[in-house]
């Protein structure tokens, strides 16, 4: 079967309930926005294919419920993720303070070396800002990860954030994967590739 993509990257969004994770995914995958808040139950995902550095990357973005009672279900998905996006709400200081807890959760459940990204959502609501940009930039530097302020509502920095993460993942893994399976190769090489992929996927 000829694939329609070169790579499949699995991304996971985590963060407090109500910060806008689902809205970010819908904006990215379907370029839509719904202002009514409907809390996510369990797990969900959207898929979108993007071009990064000439490669067709299929991004499978998993949306998680931020509520505590779904923690068991959602943490089961950490291990399969190649990139994890931590989301807070710039109008909700508590959601930013909880980023530390989400970081801890990643360390406990995710694969070592997973790419991370920090997003401060709802940047269109400047009048209600509670988290200064400088605070978030400082936190990002401490964890050596990228940081974006986004607005799912105004479509600010959403594509940029996802593309940035995809590019980082590609840089980390791209050199080791072949373009398509249809390319002839020795059995040994194929086995080696598969094993390495397995290691990456954890």
């Amino acid at each position, binding site marked *: 079967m000829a694939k329609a993509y070169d790579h499949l990257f699995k991304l996971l969004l985590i963060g407090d309930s109500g910060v806008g994770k689902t809205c970010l995914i819908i904006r990215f995958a379907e370029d839509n926005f719904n202002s009514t808040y409907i809390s996510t139950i369990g797990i969900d995902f959207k898929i979108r294919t993007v071009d990064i550095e000439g490669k067709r990357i299929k991004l499978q973005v998993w949306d998680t419920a931020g509520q505590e009672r779904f923690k068991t279900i959602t943490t089961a998905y950490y291990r399969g993720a190649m990139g994890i996006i931590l989301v807070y709400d710039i109008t909700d200081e508590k959601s930013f303070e909880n980023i530390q807890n989400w970081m801890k959760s990643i360390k406990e459940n995710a694969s070592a070396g997973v790419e991370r990204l920090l997003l401060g959502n709802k940047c269109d609501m400047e009048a209600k800002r509670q988290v200064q940009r400088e605070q978030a930039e400082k936190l990002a530097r401490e964890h050596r990860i990228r940081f974006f302020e986004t607005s799912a509502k105004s479509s600010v920095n959403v594509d940029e954030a996802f593309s940035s993460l995809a590019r980082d993942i590609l840089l980390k893994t791209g050199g080791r994967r072949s373009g398509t*399976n249809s390319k002839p190769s020795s059995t040994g090489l194929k086995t080696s590739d598969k094993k390495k992929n397995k290691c990456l996927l954890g």
Partner: protein
Amino acid sequence: MERAKMAEESLETAAEHERILREIESTDTACIGPTLRSVYDGEEHGRFMEKLETRIRNHDREIEKMCNFHYQGFVDSITELLKVRGEAQKLKNQVTDTNRKLQHEGKELVIAMEELKQCRLQQRNISATVDKLMLCLPVLEMYSKLRDQMKTKRHYPALKTLEHLEHTYLPQVSHYRFCKVMVDNIPKLREEIKDVSMSDLKDFLESIRKHSDKIGETAMKQAQQQRNLDNIVLQQPRIGSKRKSKKDVYTIFDAEVESTSPKSEQDSGILDVEDEEDDEEVPGAQDLVDFSPVYRCLHIYSVLGARETFENYYRKQRRKQARLVLQPPSNMHETLDGYRKYFNQIVGFFVVEDHILHTTQGLVNRAYIDELWEMALSKTIAALRTHSSYCSDPNLVLDLKNLIVLFADTLQVYGFPVNQLFDMLLEIRDQYSETLLKKWAGVFRNILDSDNYSPIPVTSEETYKKVVGQFPFQDIELEKQPFPKKFPFSEFVPKVYNQIKEFIYACLKFSEDLHLSSTEVDDMIRKSTNLLLTRTLSNSLQNVIKRKNIGLTELVQIIINTTHLEKSCKYLEEFITNITNVLPETVHTTKLYGTTTFKDARHAAEEEIYTNLNQKIDQFLQLADYDWMTGDLDNKASDYLVDLIAFLRSTFAVFTHLPGKVAQTACMSACKHLATSLMQLLLEAEVRQLTLGALQQFNLDVRECEQFARSGPVPGFQEDTLQLAFIDLRQLLDLFIQWDWSTYLADYGQPNCKYLRVNPVTALTLLEKMKDTSRKNNMFAQFRKNERDKQKLIDTVAKQLRGLISSHHS
């Protein structure tokens, strides 16, 4: 001519002289004075003397005759006469002296007499003049009065004066020149009176046109007050009633109408009486308009014999005004004030006309006014139909209905038939229902769009009671639970329920004052509510369910919500019954179809869940990355499938509150879809070659699915029911992996066949893919006996399968 007069005078004088002479001859001396005086009164003294001389000579001749006859006697007589002569001479002297004295004394008297004569002449002239003037003076007085009346605009009295002058006074003195001037002026004055009266009438018509809406407004207000009074009376008996009280009666007029200060009344006895009558009918109208000009004008034209002209003019002008009044403003439909002004003008017009009808004799009659009303009614109804169709605000339609009812009631009081207006109100009611449905469509859309599709959390008894107060939900188990706890339904359930009740109130409000029976109202409300439920709410729910981005969360909650709304329909039935007081057992009562709406919505949501899940499965399948040429066997299922199964597990795990049947159906639908998709993946034309190893890897994936099915992700399935979804795949894969063709071919068609569900066409298709693989490797195969043997076997089986297919198709 003068000679005749002189002759007459001479004769008279002669007769007079004869009388004097006889008097001298016959009268004593003592009386001769007056006799002689009468001679000197005239101017005929000369003639008298002549006559006297003549008489003396006659007497002398007589004496001579007697003397001749009686000489001695004569001589004696002469002697006596000579004596007499002496005496006579004395007497003559005495008389002459007396005469001279008299003449002297009489001069003053004559002068005085001349003066007296002059005075008498003047007096006679004056008397004659006075007599003439006595005839002329009334005419002049009348004319002066006429002028005054004209000047002070009192035209009807002026007209009476003029008539009197013309027919009574002027004929008596018609020969004078000034009277001719008057006679010539009378037609002009008459025309002037007519013209001025007509001018007054025109001013009057303008006045009533200008004040029509004020008059109408006052009349409508009075009708409103009367109705309020009636309502108070009607409400008395119901104080003890358990029936739910209706909403407050709509009040149209808030502010007091400013009264224009009344015009000064003309001094007229007739008007006083009429004014009193008018006060009893319409107090406001008289304050706003002075009706006296029309009365005066009518009288004037009647007296002038032009009453018919006046009537025709009046009616013509009023018809024109009616058409103007009935012309609605182009933007009347935008506000209630537009309609109110329109109605006020119409009512004002007809109140005035009714007043004229009852206060004049024949200026307008019932036939004329009914004709006008017929025209007015048809034009009004046409205008209302046109403009009300532009209304998109149900509140405005409701206010309009109240206004129309008031309009109809007001005119009915004046005796105008208004049934057509009430018929039209029923049409407006239908339009009102449509407007309401549109409004409620928006309401429902807002409610559903803003809902968070999560169970309502309550943290206190107060909040719990509040929700239960809004929506008739009873659950003993939930009631016992400690706080915080959750209602199973989301916010839109109590909101939708309350909005349905508000809709019912809105429908009821329109039916007030339309003189409909309770049964009619009940029937209408149920029909409208059915439309709301089966069309408006149904469409709103369907729109949400079919929304592109609808998630499983929303769909699941909608299923739960519609279940509760469906149960609440019986309470809506009770609500309508209480409101209209019509028992449910009443014959031909319309039933609510709400339960159908909610069943349909729930079904659609369920279908959407199945579709949604299947779409998710498709997205996972698009990630499938099989190496169909692999010779190596992995020890676990494909990554994409592991993720897929995990997704399904977590989805069904979190939707524990999904109704059992729905969860089971969704799970079965997902498994069937997954199995079908995997089969298609295996058989699709793009996969031209595959190895046994690839099949074995694929088999691991199918086993992962079967394990999911066995694990009971959703309670309620019998032990192996869910696994049946994958049985086709299972048998196909077993056949190929175990290479059990002898059994398959031998048992084909038997009821208890081990590979009953494997279609020979399917088997052949898959076998061909393995054959191609072998053929490609033919060069290498030549060097290995087992490979050659396998190829021969594949060819043999393929041949047998073709035979099987052809024999069963014939």
